[in-house]
């Protein structure tokens, strides 16, 4: 197995350093499996699948060295439709399963497909611990703010007051913001994108693949059956310009018609706020920097859209380098085996032995 050195100056898709390169080029259709796709017509998952199939050839690695692991839910059917290795596992456990695979196999590009119920409810523990460890996984979290597969109960990202079959009087559960949660867990790469924006989604996948460590990509995904239009504010041509904050490294956070809205940092509290009519030279205008070592700024960004999605940042909120769990585990083993490879006979004999003569 390859001992990977995480070289921060390296360019390109650092998550796949050590994964065998493909000879020639693959096409999107090489990643289509022979299975009939069975999501509801109009589901946002189709667009995500197409974007992922469109992006994977860019990775430049062999198809057989890519693995998608999922849990349970509509989004977790994802692996069936990709012609790579794949495992559709059990509810919530995909990050744990992927951790075991990624740790032992540095020659694989390991992806997790999960949803808001799978990753944040039943599997919340595994998600935060993979982020804490910084395992080299790319986690695609399809957030549709509803339980689709079980036919429409509120999820841990559903808004307070949501009326569903299991909350006929309105949900009283306070939701998680997945990105705030991830940042709290020590995530090194946190991004958000939207199913319908193929170009943006692809750019975020690209950034995630360039990150060595756990990359959490939240994808706002429309469930047209049980939660239709949940993200219309961020999608409809008339309104999206006023609500979507596109994060670009080094660019001031100015958005809205004619750039009338900006994100300002309250210099006293550090809090981020959206304000109207601020001159360009105001030093409090936030210039996006995803590489800040301290997560405070990224956390502030993650809080902007909470609740009503009114101002929602999309793009890479945070991308920093930190030792990668599986690289570290392998490095310890490599050191031990290079120093003195184990000899089974010696191990079994131990120190205190005696002989019974024949």
């Amino acid at each position: 197995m390859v001992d990977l050195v995480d070289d921060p100056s390296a360019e390109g898709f650092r998550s796949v350093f050590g994964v065998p390169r493909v000879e020639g080029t693959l096409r999107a259709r090489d990643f289509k499996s022979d299975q009939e796709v069975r999501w509801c017509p109009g589901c946002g998952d189709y667009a995500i699948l197409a974007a992922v199939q469109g992006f994977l050839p860019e990775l430049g690695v062999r198809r057989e060295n890519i693995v998608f692991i999922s849990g349970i839910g509509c989004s977790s059917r994802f692996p069936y439709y990709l012609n790579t290795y794949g495992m559709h596992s059990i509810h919530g456990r995909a990050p744990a399963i992927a951790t075991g695979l990624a740790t032992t196999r540095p020659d694989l590009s390991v992806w997790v497909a999960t949803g808001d119920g799978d990753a944040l409810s039943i599997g919340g523990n595994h998600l935060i611990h993979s982020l804490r460890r910084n395992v080299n996984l790319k986690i695609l979290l399809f957030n549709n703010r509803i339980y689709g597969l079980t036919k429409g109960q509120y999820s841990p990202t559903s808004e307070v007051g949501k009326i569903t079959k299991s909350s006929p009087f309105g949900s009283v559960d306070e939701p998680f913001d997945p990105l705030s949660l991830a940042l709290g867990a020590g995530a090194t790469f946190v991004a958000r994108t939207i199913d319908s924006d193929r170009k943006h989604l692809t750019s975020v996948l690209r950034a995630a693949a360039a990150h060595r460590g756990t990359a959490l990509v939240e994808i706002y995904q429309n469930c047209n059956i049980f939660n239709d239009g949940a993200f219309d504010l961020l999608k409809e041509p008339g309104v999206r310009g006023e609500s979507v904050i596109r994060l670009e490294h080094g660019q001031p956070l100015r958005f809205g018609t004619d750039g009338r809205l900006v994100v300002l940092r309250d210099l006293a509290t550090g809090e981020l706020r959206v304000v109207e009519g601020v001159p360009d030279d105001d030093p409090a205008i936030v210039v996006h920097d995803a590489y800040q070592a301290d997560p405070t700024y990224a956390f502030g960004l993650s809080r902007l859209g909470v609740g009503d999605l009114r101002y929602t940042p999309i793009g890479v909120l945070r991308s920093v380098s930190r030792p990668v769990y599986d690289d570290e585990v392998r490095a310890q083993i490599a050191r031990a085996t290079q120093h003195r490879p184990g000899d089974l006979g010696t191990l079994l004999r131990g120190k205190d032995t005696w002989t019974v003569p024949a």
Partner: protein
Amino acid sequence: MTKEVMQLDRVVIRFAGDSGDGMQLTGDRFTAETAVFGNDVSTLPNFPAEIRAPAGTLPGVSSFQVHFANYDILTSGDRPDVLVAMNPAALKANLADLRPGTTIIVDTHDFSPRNLQRAEYTSNPLEDDSLQSYHVHPVDLTQLTVDAVRQAAEGPDSAGEVGRKDAARAKNMFALGLVSWLFHRPTESTLEYLTAKFGDRPALLAANLAAFKAGWNYGETTEDFAVRYEVKPAALRPGAYRNISGNLALAYGLIAAGERSGLPLFLGSYPITPASDVLHELARQKAFNVYTVQAEDEIAGIGAALGAAFGGALAVTTTSGPGLALKSETIGLGVALELPLLVCDVQRGGPSTGLPTKTEQADLLQAMFGRNGEAPVPVVAPRSPADCFDTALEAARIALTYRTPVILLSDGALANGSEPWRIPDVESLPDLRPEFATGPNGDDGGFLPYLRDPETLARPWAVPGTPGLEHRIGGIEKADRTGEVSYDPDNHDRMVRLRQAKVDGIAGSLSPVEVDDPSGQARVLVLGWGSTYGPIGAACRRVRGEGLDIAQAHLRHLNPFPPGLGEVLHHYDRVVVPEMNLGQLALLLRARFLVDVYGYHKVRGMPFQAEELADLLKGVITGG
């Protein structure tokens, strides 16, 4: 002074003291001396679940029993011949296990009114007549230790002073020295051990050495001990031996399975008593290409292992009963995915948290049936501490050959107990190298991930990275051969039966059940599984020693059962099944073979005693 030397065949010694008195260490060292001397030896540690229960109280008592003999023994002994009691609580907690005439060496130092009260004594047992029927040696071990340590510190080779507290703490070494003298133990291994342990703290090393030697010399010089004992080495099978505990043997068995399969060994585990030592040991052995992931919970432990199995590793998770419950769903996924996976359950008292440091065999039915749906899993169980090594290899053989999760049921008594182990020759260990799928297996040049080997019914193990074999597996029912998602009723019926047939078919690879019936005249069979092997075997010897006939069989394979078991059960008039549960194997045997087994059940957190089982068997034989 010359002392009389008495020859004995076997001796049971129990060291008992407060949790903080170092009794486990003392027992360990005495065991090492005894093993090196060449006796057969078997041990049973017994300690409270609390790391530090209140000092001097009955719940805080920790003990270590060593049984050694000049012949091969099977158990750690029913009742001690010698009790070393370091405080009033240790005396009180263990007195009920003593026969009249037992030797008691008791540290008198702590028999103050306050400590007697802590141990719930209303009067001082050293002064009233309550110990009359025992052979008591009252020794102020603590004071003698402190004096010896002080003397050493004042002597010409002084390594410096230690405080009174540290000096008193060396009293376990005084006790070890005294008992080592009493039984003619070789002391080199203990001296070496102390030197290694305290090498960088010369004052503490000097204190412990002084205490140990003072204990030895105390026996030699005082008149209190007029007799010394000798237990000659046992005539064991020729070979190189070492002493080994069940958890260590299990860890070594897993490492050996990794080496013999040529696969990286992967352990995903969450700390739990009494299984954590396996995690600790494997975490040390990285030089054997061993991966250990200390997971965030039991579910992640087995999840990570399953992921590693998908990637082609020899994957293991270790746990105890409550953890096995948490792993159920993932074991079910392993059944559906048909990937090799070892699940080692070191059983403890249950239900729920139960008795974490005590032994029990009550997870058998959980191992057999504790999953949703028809989810057959092979189950194996070691019979002794050293047998954990062989059973780990056997579990790996089954998992790798049949592409299935396998549950190995050890228990607390095996895990922490120890015995001499004849060190195997590495080349004699089974060859476990698996065959990975490397190319298409379908008629049309495609890959069928659920096309089965006609003999084993195992499916191909096609690991990621193999070109052309890209496939998706999952927990949804799969179509026979293709592995595609299938909701077809006939297919589901077929797949359920195929998975069952695969596990049942493992029996074909097993040797028929072996019955030990020396006279060939026995009408009663005693059948056990797991750690009851020792006491059942010892009981059979006693029964036969009294001229009665008894047949014994012991199961390593609990699912599937070995071939011929039904015939064996029906051959005898009576089948007795002692278990440390309320009759779990008995239930399986009755259901499977329609045989009216006679169960004997005890769940006291401690192994059976040979004596009680011998009485039971005699009763069944003579009572008809």
